[in-house]
């Protein structure tokens, strides 16, 4: 079925795979999520044709909002080329026939796993996050019955204790990704496993942010222009990761970088995690200190697998 086209698919399945009743149910959950920013709305997540934990929540949210005129960008780890991003993009191209793009600026819907694009998003865009564990308190309290009460009572002391214990033990808050945020001064929310580097981008973002957790059956949202604060303490303010060198390919600074191991002797380079951002900069003449080593299709090991 991998090579089936949209026309072929449409003979057997509904637009965007989900049946209309399921879409309605998800759409209602999305509306509630928007009305109560950061609150996790339970929804009757369906079994999808990809495994739980591989983006079923994001896929269901995207399938519920996508229309024939949308332009979809699908990223995983900041890149359009990672295997699961490729697989999920293929799913939507096949089931909706929509146009797909790798350009952040051209997309109307961006589904992501683990990153927020470097380029600021705009009002006509929606960012859909794939979420593995939507409950920010889950690592501290495994029981849903308990965490639900804590959210109801706005009882987040446990979270602050955990962060403070980190400081006592390590001299800093030892959470580097899925760093909890407070949304609209009310709900503590899991931003999905994005690096904390990306947390500030959520605050007052122009675009609507929707979060889907398929296995855990939760949808939540951050509307545009909404206050999103990373939890911290006055004497230990929230800080994002800093990289000592710029992107080796495009020279960008203040972006999130992937570390690439070059040999078995410890040589490494740092390159933009956001592949579209990096390519765009290189097209516009920005050159990093190791850019002489071009990426060509002939060196394309992935294709030989």
């Amino acid at each position, binding site marked *: 079925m991998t090579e089936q086209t949209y026309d072929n698919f449409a003979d057997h399945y509904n637009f965007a795979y989900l049946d209309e009743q399921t879409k309605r149910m998800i759409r209602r959950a999305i509306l509630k999520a928007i009305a109560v920013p950061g609150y996790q709305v339970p929804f009757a997540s369906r079994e999808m044709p990809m495994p739980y934990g591989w983006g079923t929540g994001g896929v269901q949210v995207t399938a519920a909002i996508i229309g024939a005129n949308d332009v979809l960008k699908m990223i995983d780890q900041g890149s359009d080329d990672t295997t699961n991003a490729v697989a999920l993009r293929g799913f939507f191209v096949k089931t909706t026939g929509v146009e797909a793009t790798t350009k952040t600026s051209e997309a109307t819907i961006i589904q992501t796993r683990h990153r927020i694009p470097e380029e600021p998003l705009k009002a006509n865009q929606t960012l859909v996050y794939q979420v593995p564990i939507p409950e920010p308190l889950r690592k501290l309290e495994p029981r849903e019955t308990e965490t639900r009460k804590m959210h109801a009572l706005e009882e987040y002391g446990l979270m602050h204790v955990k962060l403070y214990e980190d400081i006592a033990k390590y001299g800093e808050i030892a959470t580097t990704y899925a760093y909890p945020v407070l949304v609209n001064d009310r709900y503590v929310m899991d931003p999905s496993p994005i690096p904390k580097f990306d947390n500030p981008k959520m605050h007052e973002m122009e675009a609507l942010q929707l979060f889907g957790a398929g296995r855990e059956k939760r949808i939540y949202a951050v509307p545009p222009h909404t206050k999103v604060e990373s939890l911290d303490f006055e004497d230990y303010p929230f800080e994002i990761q800093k990289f000592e060198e710029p992107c080796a390919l495009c020279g960008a600074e203040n972006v*999130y970088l992937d570390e690439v191991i070059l040999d078995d002797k410890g040589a490494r380079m740092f390159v933009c*995690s956001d592949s579209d951002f990096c390519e765009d900069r290189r097209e516009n003449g920005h050159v990093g200190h190791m850019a002489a080593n071009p*990426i060509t299709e002939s060196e394309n090991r992935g294709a030989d697998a």
Partner: protein
Amino acid sequence: MYVAVKGGEKAIRNAHKLMERDRRGDRSVPALELKQIAEQLYLSVSRVMSEGSLYDVELAALAIKQSRGDLIEAIFLLRAYRTTLPRFGYSEPIDTAAMLVRRRISATYKDLPGGQLLGPTYDYTHRLLNFKLAADGELPESVQAEYDAAEEIPRVTDLLNAEGMMEPDPQVPSDAVVGDLTREPMEFPADRDIRLQNLARGDEGFLLALGYSTQRGFGGSHPFAGEIRFGEVDVDFFVEELGFSVPLGRMSVTECQMINQFQGSTVAPPQFTRGYGLAPGQAERKVMSMALVDRALRCRELGEEAVAPAQDEEFVLSHSDNVQATGFVEHLKLPHYVDFQAELELVRRMRKDWQARQEVEAAQANGPVEEAAQ
């Protein structure tokens, strides 16, 4: 040299082609036919139908073939297909007392109305590899079932019930709506209807281990296999427009009623209580495990203290689904390098701090000597 992982699409296509080739295996060996799977691997088919929540022998056989016999993968395939099917309504409850029984045993009475009927079972076989099968040995002679198929066989629990020794079947108001965990997110505490649905779809291995743990004292129950029966039941559908039920067909099911001693509470006299298991097809191990876990999970309702894993409703129900579990465990295969990078940076920094502290401490350890000397 830095090689960006590009062209993932082609790589994925090729990987799937490789998988398809391996699935087929040596082409000089005839391909499996669905009929062969359905007829000769029926216990696998049963498990896939049960945990895949779809009663369709042929589709289950197809899923097993497509998944190379990986039953969890087959269950997943069936579930994903099932969600796309339109739902017309809910059947009437099946009546297992009216089952056309092929096998029925009770561990609680030597003899009882309807008798003990061993039927098709591996019980009491000697577990010796049958090399005749390897040599494609001769077919066993056909066996004629020796029972009157038309006879209804009363359930053991009903017999006990007549004596008042058994807790009665729970009485549900006629307008009560049975929950549907495929249509609503799970909520805790969960009622028994939802719990049983969850267990019916739950992983056989997980339930087996949990059921076993209750026998070994983790949740101390004292179960007797009141009855296990396997056979065919009618499935009826009430048609609103007609005002009466019409038969849709028959399905094979296995049912287990475990009987547990109960010492009574302030509200209930000493009596026997039930643990219940039901699954499509022939699935004895599954329904027995399910019945043990069902009984363990009734601790809240029966006023027992929940002390063991099998009694922990949220723990059991949240982790029983093998499609969810395998997805999340296997998602660790997906790239995580953004988060790993974040952790690398943190650990490097913490190691630097640690080293700096060690040096300071070492210096301090030498320090006081000098101070003392002054």
